[in-house]
């Protein structure tokens, strides 16, 4: 199958390894991956922040860029949700009938990475090997907007050598929330710290998720002193956390020989 990668702006600049991991998994499974070089951003940040015309102009750009693609894979739950739901909602809000229609036509082509593997390609065993203790955080958009359900866990369970441990209160938001992290830094950090405490309690060495944005929030928060956060209690996070964060694609791409 010919699959077009929408790598997302964040992965493009900060996490190219995630993009390469998606390519590696799909090619290992015998598929052909395209990368439309004119792509930039789905507009999520602008749209969620209330900058509707600016965000929709990015939506139009994505729709145009991927005009020829049949299947678009996105290694992010929240960008998938933006492309599937938010474009249409905001275009409706802005009374842009043309874009509402274009968004509705575009939406069925878009798949979050784990959805693509399980639903479209019909695989759960992607031949991965990863000998670490891993816990999975279902990001809110994966869990409640696009509802990936246990697809990511089904994929992780088939990874050789992995020890999967459960994340306490897994369905709680990590506190990132895009612009929320900037506009409400104190609340965002307090929520993040609770998530970090749960990751520590899970005993995992690696925290994985389908969104590098949430993982960035948690890993950069973990790097600073938790005592800076208002309401910080010593019983929640006692020491500098030492888990690593990884996008789920990088775990699925990993083999005994390395990536």
């Amino acid at each position, binding site marked *: 199958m010919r699959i077009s990668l929408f790598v997302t*702006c964040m992965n*493009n*600049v*900060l996490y*190219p*390894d995630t*993009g*390469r991991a998606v*390519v590696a998994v799909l090619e290992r499974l015998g598929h052909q991956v395209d*990368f439309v*070089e*004119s*792509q*930039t*951003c789905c507009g999520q*940040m602008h749209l*969620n*922040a*209330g*900058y*509707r*015309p*600016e965000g929709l*102009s*990015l939506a*139009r*750009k994505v729709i*145009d*860029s991927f*005009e020829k693609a049949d299947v678009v894979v996105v290694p992010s739950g929240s960008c998938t949700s933006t492309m599937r739901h*938010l474009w249409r*909602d905001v275009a409706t*809000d802005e009374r*842009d009938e043309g874009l509402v229609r274009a968004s509705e036509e575009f939406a069925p082509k878009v798949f979050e990475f784990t959805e693509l593997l399980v639903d479209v390609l019909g695989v759960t065993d992607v031949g991965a090997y990863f000998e670490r203790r891993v816990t999975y955080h279902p990001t*809110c958009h994966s869990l409640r*907007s696009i509802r990936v359900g246990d697809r990511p866990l089904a994929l992780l369970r088939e990874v050789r050598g992995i020890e999967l441990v459960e994340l306490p209160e897994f*369905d709680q*938001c990590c506190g990132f*929330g895009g*612009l*929320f*992290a*900037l*506009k*409400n*830094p104190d*609340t965002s*950090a*307090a*929520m*993040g710290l609770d998530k970090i405490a749960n990751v520590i309690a899970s005993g995992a060495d690696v925290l994985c998720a389908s969104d590098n944005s949430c993982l*960035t*929030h948690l890993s*950069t*928060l973990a*790097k600073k002193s938790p005592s*800076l956060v*208002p*309401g910080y*209690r010593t019983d929640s996070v006692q020491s500098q956390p030492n888990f690593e964060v990884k996008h789920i694609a990088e775990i699925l791409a990993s083999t005994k020989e390395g990536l």
Partner: protein
Amino acid sequence: MARTFAGAPDFPIGAKVSLANPQLRSNMARATRTIREKRNLRVSELDTWEELRVAGESIKRSGLANLHDLLTTFEKNVTDAGGHVHWAVDAEHARRIVLEIVEETGSKDVVKIKSMTSVEIDLNSALEKAGITAYETDLAELIVQLGDDLPSHIVVPAIHRNRDEVRDIFKAHMGEWGLKAPDDLSSAPEDLARAARLHLRERFLASQVGISGANFLVAETGSVAIVESEGNGRMCLTLPNTLISLAGIDKIIPRFEDLDVFFQVLPRSATGERMNPYNSIWTGVTKGDGPQNFHVVLIDNGRSSALDDRVGRDALRCIRCAACLNVCPVYERVGGHAYGSVYPGPIGAVLTPQLNHVTSDHVAQSLPYASTLCGACFDACPVRIDIPKLLVHLRGEVVDAKRSLTPKSQEQAGMRAASWLFARSSRLRSVGDFGAKTSSPLRGRKISLPGWLSGWSRFRAVPLPSQVTFATWWHKERAVEGETQQPSSRRREFRHKNTSIEPHALGIRPVVAPDAALNQANARDAILSAIRYSNRGQNEQPPIPRSYRRAARVETIDTIEHFKERVSDYQATVRYASFETIDSAIAEALSSRGSTSIVIPAGVPQEWLSSFAGTVITDDGTLEHASINAVDAVVTGCTAAIAETGTVILNSEADQGRRVITLIPDHHVVIVRSGQVVPDVPDVIARLDPARPQTWISGPSATSDIELSRVEGVHGPRKLDVIIVRE
């Protein structure tokens, strides 16, 4: 003077204050966790839950679309039944209407049921200014009032207080308002509830004016429905001679039968119970039973304007269950006060900006951003309000309102820069690659970002690109010559559409100077014409999907057993009897609780009491409250009973009597004939007469206001005995 939310800081500041309060944090975490678990358990019992949500959405949606007609129908039906309907354009107007009614009675005090609408219009301050004392009677509102505090939750206003704090407040302040708390008051919720019962009992018996909110206004019958737990509601609704019910115009539902949805979803969503202890439904004035002077104040206060927003209007479907608060990770951490608004949490974040005009009020402008858009609220909402979608929409309104302001904010500049960056893939690549090349000296260093961006770096390290962008890597390593796609020539240039949305109904909403002599006729016309304007082109009347009524009927014997089990869950006692043994069953129930004097309605057969040796007073409709307060118990029949929820329904028939006799005595013995028991809530609707006052009773009076743990026994009967008579 009663405290108000006026002058509250923007959400991020309020949140920061709350976050630093460890007591608040642990109270909130414990309480919201408790209520979430209870709610999930009770919701999981219903395999019709999703169908009920769809029906609830659909009923409220069509209610809003036909609001004009429903309100006028409601008005006519209330008036025909002897009540008075008033129309209030805004909070100031509503306060004035209430004051006039109270002043006309000459009463210097009023008893109140918890009503968020009353807080919304800041009624207590107005009453206080006029020399009228308002006594809050709901346990949580009492805690708030005694502690000179503000509500922090829609259903459980004192959720931010734990039991020790409540005890301290009671001990310090009860005496200032009436009977003081016992010196040895413990912090056990049972003791605190008992102290509230004693403190308010005399107040109820002497009250002349009651003020309530309303959960539902039924257009078709002119009925008002109130759900509550403690019995303070029943006290306020039945003992005073004058009753004033405040209701936002959004509280309307079309039909009486629609209650079969809301009486299932509201208790489960709000307090995690199959049914709350008491539902009261009444229509106008019933001669000889309850208030003889009844007023409904229909309040607009921004609602007809919100109705004009095609997306925002969905917030008006809200039934105030607060399930969205209980699941919200932001609310859990910051509590209700941080929102600086009467309606906190996710629903407050979409309702307040619409009621308070998002374009001008800075607190209201901060609220749509008080969410991570995690979506837990939408999943929990029993009427399927897509709160994240509304939040995003309202953020758009905030941004648009600020577009014309100069100088530009840092946020606006940042968004502009991002737009520039994302407009061309080459820009994103160049910036990313440049960052990767130059960032190494910064690696491992503490970076403080300037201004607006400091929100990130205050608590977090700054992520830096360390490798060339994916796009550059692909271009070098993977792109095949000739296959590199150029940006499509069809690419539309960024164009800034004029986003000024069509004018809100504001323009034609009543523009009335606060001091103008508003008369009822022009307020009514102003509200109705604003609604008509907002609803232009919205005359849909879709059929309500009633598939939730499909529940398979079980055999009669199972229904009875099911009923027994469910009633017992409420700490009520259930006995079986036959018509031959009914007298001894009643005598046993009475003596087991030490009840030696009873009151009965005229329709209870004397032979039911042939084995009872104590004093029997028959209510002929003239018994004084004090005389009823002097007996130990009341014995009645009922109209119907619901197995699934363990509910007994009194519909004021001859063997049930006036509402007051089943309220004041501390012990209620109720006789249920097996043929009166139906399987579930929808099955009972046809058996009821909406014209008569109704009381739905599910267990003894109870409260969950202290740390969300249910305690039996507040103002209503603390002991409930049910006798099932097999027919």
